[in-house]
């Protein structure tokens, strides 16, 4: 792993050097003047996009960026001032609501019309009829499995969690791995995300329509929790401290036969030059299993995209939009198809994107872009740990979640 990461980093570093030395040649982004200031999260795909945006810099156009894991904490104060500290906020469907709540991003319809020839309808995030953000990549959780072990045990690839439980029992019997299954259920955000995935596969809504009243305290909620609990039977006893990257490492080192983790782990898992080439050769990807027989993969999909600040001049907004259009152009997605699953026109899914594309094709739901979803997510993260450790019943856990959410939503003014 380390070596492949080093390689990736080196490849990336040379890319930067290349971009810098190629600066005088300059991509023609068609920008006359303006200032582009990007705030984004810090991971490879976004680093590439930011670097590509800087190609648009000229004597009259400045392009700067700030990549930081604290971007979510910074974005609201940074965009609230006038003029905003950043003109572009790179966001995902769970970090857009805070900007929308405070009205900090501008509608993009005029800019899409002028400069968005390469955009597909799927990329446009419309709210109340107005384009508020442009999505460019997708991530979500799906199943990673060992082809060899399933074959040896005479099992089909599980398509539902019920089948996965049966397969896990058989694999445990077979005894080729320490544990049959791993999932990202580390206490906190990831445990909450697992519940969100499972619950969304029941097809039910998280909130009562038209209000901020939470609606998970029902038989769907109980069923989702009980499935999560049943799965722990087949996981390492450390499961409460296993997150997505830990589960990925367990899978890669042959400790588990199946795992449901983020699609962005497919790169390291399938890397033939990584630490575990023998596992990479027998790893299979499939959609997240569905649940309760209604065929919806138990995975909520996340899109990453960008929005443009409201508190900036029209000139800067136009420059920013054009720079981002250049950064996420079709040829970029073609050249970097192995980096992520792009929503950009011209992207051909690579073998590593099979799982996430299966999620999308089978109708997995998007992570709810609701103003109060983060409060529910937080309540889930802190209240579910006891249930998972068998200290309380599913009903009690759901009641606790509801109470914790209500306290938070009242403080934020969503409930009275």
């Amino acid at each position: 792993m380390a070596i492949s990461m080093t390689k990736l980093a080196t490849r990336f570093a040379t890319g930067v050097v290349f971009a810098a030395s190629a600066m005088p040649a300059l991509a023609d982004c068609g920008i006359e003047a303006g200032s582009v200031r990007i705030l984004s999260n810090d991971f490879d795909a976004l680093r590439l996009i930011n670097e590509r945006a800087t190609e648009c810099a000229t004597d009259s156009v400045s392009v700067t960026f700030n990549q930081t894991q604290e971007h979510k904490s910074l974005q609201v104060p940074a965009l609230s001032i006038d003029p905003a500290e950043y003109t572009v906020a790179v966001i995902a469907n769970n970090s857009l609501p805070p900007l929308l709540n405070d009205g900090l991003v501008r509608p993009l319809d005029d800019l899409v019309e002028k400069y968005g020839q390469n955009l597909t309808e799927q990329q446009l995030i419309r709210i109340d009829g107005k384009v508020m953000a442009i999505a460019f990549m997708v991530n979500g959780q799906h199943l990673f499995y060992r082809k060899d072990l399933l074959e040896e045990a005479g099992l089909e690839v599980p398509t539902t969690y019920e089948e996965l439980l049966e397969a896990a029992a058989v694999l445990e019997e077979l005894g080729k791995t320490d544990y049959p299954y791993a999932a990202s259920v580390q206490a906190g955000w990831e445990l909450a995300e697992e519940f969100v995935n499972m619950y969304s596969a029941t097809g039910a809504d998280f909130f009562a329509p038209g209000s901020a009243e939470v609606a998970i305290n029902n038989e769907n909620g109980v069923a989702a929790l009980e499935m999560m609990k049943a799965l722990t039977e087949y996981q390492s006893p450390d499961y409460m401290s296993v997150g997505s990257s830990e589960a990925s490492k367990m899978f890669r080192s042959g400790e588990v036969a199946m795992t449901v983790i983020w699609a962005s782990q497919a790169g390291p898992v399938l890397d033939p030059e990584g630490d575990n080439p023998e596992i990479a050769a027998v790893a299979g990807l499939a959609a997240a299993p569905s649940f309760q027989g209604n065929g919806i993969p138990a995975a909520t999909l996340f899109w990453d995209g960008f929005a443009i600040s409201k508190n900036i001049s029209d000139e800067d907004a136009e420059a920013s939009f054009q720079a981002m259009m250049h950064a996420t152009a079709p040829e970029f997605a073609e050249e970097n198809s192995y980096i992520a699953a792009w929503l950009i026109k011209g992207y051909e899914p690579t073998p590593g994107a099979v799982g996430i594309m299966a999620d999308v094709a089978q109708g997995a739901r998007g992570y709810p872009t609701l103003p109060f979803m983060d409060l529910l997510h937080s309540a889930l993260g802190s209240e579910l740990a006891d249930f998972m450790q068998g200290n309380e019943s599913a009903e009690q856990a759901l009641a606790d979640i509801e109470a914790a959410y209500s306290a938070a939503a009242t403080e934020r003014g969503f409930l009275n």
Partner: protein
Amino acid sequence: MPHRTFLFFILPSAVAMFLFIALPIGSVILQSLHVEHGQVLVEVESCTPFGGCKTQTRVDAEATAALRAEAPLGRWNGLGTYMNRAHLATAELGEIFRSDTTLREKFAQVYQLRFYRALFFTLIYTFVVTPAGIIVGFWIALAVNRLPQMLKGPVIFVSLLPMIITPLIGSLVLYWMLNSRGILGKALQWLSGNPDLSIAASGPLMWVSLILYGIWIAAPFSFVVFYAGLQTVPDDTLESAMIDGANRWERVRYVVIPHLMPLATFVSLVQVMDNFRVLEPIVGFNAEAHAMSLSSIIYTDLQAENGQLFGSAAATSMLTIGFVVILLSPVLVRTWREFGKRAH
């Protein structure tokens, strides 16, 4: 010292503290007494890449901004946030104590409440780690003091290492060593004869690890201070004690410890405060499932993924300060008396 001179000397420091600590604390207190305005919710059609277009609930940003412009602080809530379920949970506590259950069940129910769970761990951590760290530090200081001169330098240096290493990284490396696959974890499995032993899977083991880590990181501070103190123990007092026939233990008990007492006050003051704010080991050890501290719930509330509950974090912070003041009050009263003596 005249008032003017005092003012002249203290001013830079006081201004810095006023601007960057007192003012923010003031705003934190204000914030904890308010909740946000009722958000104006509307239903609009929204379209995303997955699942097409749907009617969804949104905040009407303009209408909400208008409300906010009228009263920027939000709605007055008094001590409401302090009393709600995420903090002192007075209503829930009342219900638990009125209900017809055994004491044990009542305790279990109280322990379900986030604040009390965090408080319980924080108090235990503080009350175990502080004295243990001081005692271990004192012992090391006594022992190092007996070493030959040339060995003292390197020994002091190595002893300081736990304090020097960045806590976030220190706890991460130690966690990996203690993990069921790490060198210490394997050693534990071998010692206990249980190949499945894992600190991450067991609440009690996790607590023990966190507390041992706490002592590891706290002992060097006490050690440095006590070691320095030992250099000032007057030789003549020790010698006269020796002539009186006091054995080694009696000399420590009746000469050294009283001499170091004022230092112990200073050390415990600083250590109680630092231990009460324990956060890094809980993050580094992935221990959220088994242990929460007051600082870790503040940290959780402030995380952007969790919706940034500033009011809630503010209330927990004020409660933390309150508890620290209560814990330190004996020391504060002592300082007050000494100060009075000095003044006259």
